[in-house]
């Protein structure tokens, strides 16, 4: 099935098989790689997409956005008005907050958050030659996550060290998202410090990093070199999307700290 046909097929299935789905999801092509089912956007506080995640609140008595982010400074307390979950989330935490919640900023200092949403980290991405997996789609619809989830990078779910530990990734895993803090020492590079381990682990030769990265740099500098020749140094407060096919190296004398987000697993 080519991409166009898949788009037609999938576009028709939603209204026919799930009468409420058109309110829950929007469907987009993702350039040449099939189709994407995308969660409702979580950017404006009054957006009504609570039902997409099984959270039924649909009024302005609480925030109806889904948030995936990290706390950089300060703390706040979140209470889900759907399942009653309540958590205080503080600097150094990653969080996923489902639609239907109230919040209060604690203390006397401003709260600084960074939140990301990627439109390509899709729940279901049928490839052009694949049939749509409706079973998986049902699984997504029926998935029910706690209203508020937070994890500290100080006690990550996974910690990944590159060769020589020049890169260290602290990974916070959520059911529908992954957030990681990556710390790179000066001189650390993908080609020198990550590729050897990856080649050995995968038993094949990588020419460049094949991962897509979405996030921002908190401190330090990273030189990114694309396979086709583009090169740029990114630094503090730079938000980025780096598509597959690149090398990267920490430049300057300071550690580089960045955060990466996969927001729609």
């Amino acid at each position, binding site marked *: 099935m080519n991409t166009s046909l898949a788009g037609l097929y999938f576009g028709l299935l939603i209204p026919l098989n799930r009468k409420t789905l058109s309110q829950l999801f929007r469907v987009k092509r993702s350039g040449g790689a099939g189709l994407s089912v995308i969660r409702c956007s979580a950017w404006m506080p009054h957006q009504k997409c609570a039902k997409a995640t099984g959270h039924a609140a649909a009024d302005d008595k609480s925030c109806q956005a889904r948030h995936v982010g990290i706390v950089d400074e*300060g703390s706040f307390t979140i209470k889900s008005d759907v399942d009653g979950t309540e958590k205080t989330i503080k600097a150094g935490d990653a969080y996923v907050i489902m639609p239907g919640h109230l919040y*209060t*900023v604690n203390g006397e200092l401003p709260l600084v958050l960074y939140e990301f*949403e990627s*439109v390509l980290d899709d729940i279901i991405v049928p490839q052009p030659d694949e049939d749509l997996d409706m079973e998986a789609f049902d699984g997504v619809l029926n998935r029910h996550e706690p209203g508020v989830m937070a994890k500290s990078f100080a006690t990550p779910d996974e910690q990944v060290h590159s060769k020589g530990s020049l890169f260290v990734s602290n990974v916070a895993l959520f059911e529908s998202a992954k957030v990681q803090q990556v710390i790179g020492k000066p001189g650390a590079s993908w080609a020198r410090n990550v590729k050897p381990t990856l080649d050995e682990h995968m038993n094949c030769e990588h020419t460049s990093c094949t991962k897509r990265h979405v996030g921002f740099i908190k401190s330090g500098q990273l030189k990114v070199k694309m396979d086709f020749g583009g090169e740029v140094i990114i630094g503090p407060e730079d*938000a980025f*999307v780096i598509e597959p096919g690149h090398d990267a190296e920490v430049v300057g004398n300071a550690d580089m700290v960045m955060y990466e987000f996969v927001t729609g697993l």
Partner: protein
Amino acid sequence: MLLCLIASRLVVKNFSTPDKTFQLSRMVEGYRNNLGTAKGMRVVLQPGATWEVIKE
């Protein structure tokens, strides 16, 4: 710094020069960058900010 490079294979935008700045009451300021296939936002909330206050 704002850089959009090379056919969107690499997109970099700094939060100091965001695509959009918004303010919800005096308690919340947001800086939002559209990265093509993703969006990034920096949000600053003042002490005491609550959903009830901000939605007004």
